[in-house]
């Protein structure tokens, strides 16, 4: 754009302190984060359960198979049961590691059928021997197929396991007190560990979820506090800005120092009202804040009997409130001085926003600067790019222009 404008810089040049970046840290989705944490800890428990069951099945149950069974048919049943159990373990494991849940009822039924078949095939002699692998090996698959189901399902399944074992015991006639005591020990021994693993997994996941939920809630509260503080600070700053002009006039009027009939006093009132109106508009949440603020000032001027034309070309980019303030404030002040008509234009170019107010020149005082062919011109710089302000009157028109350039 024109460089000859820059060549005749007159008036003070202010540099303002950089504006702190706006926008509070966005609070994360608390529920989503808690679920993610719970999923992560649950996954560890799933891996542990799958590993224990399959390792037990391979390392302890498999070596026991060769010496089992009183007949080839019985041996075949026991081996088939081992294979079916392995298949169930693989199906449930794959489901669990992929994040899903295995079909609990169907797999539990399959495991119980295997349980009964193997007990029946093993027969009386080997009931308590290592060869009867279902005693201690099958129970590790119960937590697998019942993952994330209620604990009572697991207890019921373990109960069914105990009943099948008891039935086998009674069928083979091993009802001596020693056998029954051994039975009780076995039931207790094989049930306690799977229950502990199952309950532990559930508790860990619940705990992790609760902790994550607490942490995100605390973060959200903190973010809200920061945002509220910022809003309050902005509000206070706006109030200070507005009261600077309004308070003075009101105090003078109240004290009787200012005469409402004095055109200068009226002009100051109009200016203060225009500032207040613009500051109120500033905090509105609208898609196009700069135009909204200018429209607010134009509305007020129009109500005061000014014929005003507001023309906007292009859509201004999102500008920080401080830049908008510097773009709009000089025009608001100039509008308070305007007589008859005003032409307010906003042009958004590729890298700049230019706001201009043209009104007929008159002999009255000049709010925006001392009278003269070239008025003051200032450029305030900050990280968002400089805002340049030119005000001049040439006897025909008063011309106020602010211009922001992207740097």
């Amino acid at each position, binding site marked *: 754009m*024109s460089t000859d404008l820059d060549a005749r810089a007159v008036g003070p040049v202010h540099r303002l302190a950089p504006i702190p970046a706006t926008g509070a840290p966005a609070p994360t989705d608390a529920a989503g984060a808690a679920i993610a944490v719970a999923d992560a800890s649950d996954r560890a428990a799933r891996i542990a359960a799958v590993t224990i069951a399959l390792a037990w099945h391979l390392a302890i149950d498999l070596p026991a198979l060769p010496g089992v069974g009183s007949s080839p048919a019985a041996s075949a049943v026991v081996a088939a049961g081992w294979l079916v159990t392995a298949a169930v373990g693989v199906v449930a494991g794959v489901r669990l590691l992929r994040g899903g849940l295995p079909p609990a009822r169907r797999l539990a039924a399959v495991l119980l059928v295997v349980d009964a078949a193997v007990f029946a095939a093993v027969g009386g002699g080997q009931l308590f021997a290592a060869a009867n692998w279902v005693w201690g090996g099958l129970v590790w698959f119960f937590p697998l197929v019942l993952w994330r189901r209620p604990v009572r399902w697991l207890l019921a399944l373990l109960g069914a396991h105990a009943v099948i074992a008891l039935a086998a015991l009674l069928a083979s006639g091993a009802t001596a007190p020693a056998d029954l005591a051994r039975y009780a020990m076995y039931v207790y021994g094989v049930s306690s560990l799977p229950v502990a693993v199952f309950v532990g997994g559930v508790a860990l996941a619940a705990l992790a979820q609760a902790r994550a939920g607490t942490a995100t809630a605390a973060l959200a509260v903190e973010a809200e506090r920061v945002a509220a503080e910022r809003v309050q600070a902005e509000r206070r700053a706006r109030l200070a800005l507005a009261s600077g002009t309004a308070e003075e006039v009101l105090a003078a009027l109240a004290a009787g120092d200012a005469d409402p009939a004095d055109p200068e006093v009226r002009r100051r009132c109009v200016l203060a009202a225009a500032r207040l109106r613009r500051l109120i508009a500033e905090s509105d949440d609208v898609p196009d804040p700069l135009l909204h603020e200018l429209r607010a000032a134009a509305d007020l001027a129009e109500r005061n009997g000014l014929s005003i034309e507001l023309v906007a070309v292009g859509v201004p980019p999102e500008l920080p409130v401080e830049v908008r303030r510097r773009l709009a404030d000089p025009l608001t002040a100039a509008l308070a001085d305007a007589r008859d008509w005003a032409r307010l234009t906003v042009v958004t170019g590729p890298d700049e926003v230019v706001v201009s107010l043209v009104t007929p020149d008159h002999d009255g005082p000049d709010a925006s600067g001392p009278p003269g062919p070239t008025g003051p011109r200032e450029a305030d710089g900050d990280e968002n790019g400089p805002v340049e302000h030119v005000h001049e009157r040439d006897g025909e028109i008063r011309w106020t222009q602010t211009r922001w350039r992207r740097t």
Partner: protein
Amino acid sequence: MDADPVAADVTGGRPIGVAIVDDHPVVIDGVRAWLASEPRLRVLATGDDPDAVLRAAPEAEVVLLDLRLHGRMAFDKLAELSAAGRRVVVYSQHTDPDTMLAALDAGAVAFLAKHEGREHCVATVLAAASDRPYVPPALAGAMVGDPRPDRPALSDKEREALLLWFQSMSKASVARRMRISEHTVKQYVDRARIKYTRAGRPAATKAALLARAIEDGLVRPEEIGTYRSQASTDRPTP
């Protein structure tokens, strides 16, 4: 007005024939009244159908066309007339920049916002009759805010002159502000307009504007470069 001596030259002292196309009789009457105050202009025919109006007055030198006819935007008719060499001045209440630039692309000699009034209307028609540009303030605003990536490259002075002209609507004020003569302000503005003859599809009216600008010394041929259509295949590929 800007174009007086020349208008007399081209037409040999004869009044310039104007046709008005609008679907609102009250607007036709209003524009006719505006033009009637200028003795060098004569309204030959009016109506709401461009073809019928031009059949009635085939010798019309300038067509004032309301862009919105019977509820639809007449861009295709505008392009057809411009391609045939008709000098069409579009006037419309639709003053959003996109519409204005699209009208220029389609070959309109000038775009006039309906609210811009008598003075601009007469000046635009007189300039159009001699294939000279006239940029009313609203059009200047559209050109300076043109966001299209393939917009014509305007010089800093041209942009500044367009911007200030749009803001103040007074070439005298722009001249004082830019510390140049009013004549130079007009040159900057007109030169920017001539650069827009390269945008959009080619039209006989655009060629005429360009030729007259070169003849008048407003631009040199090398400043404008050769016209290159968006559709042509000789664009360098990246």
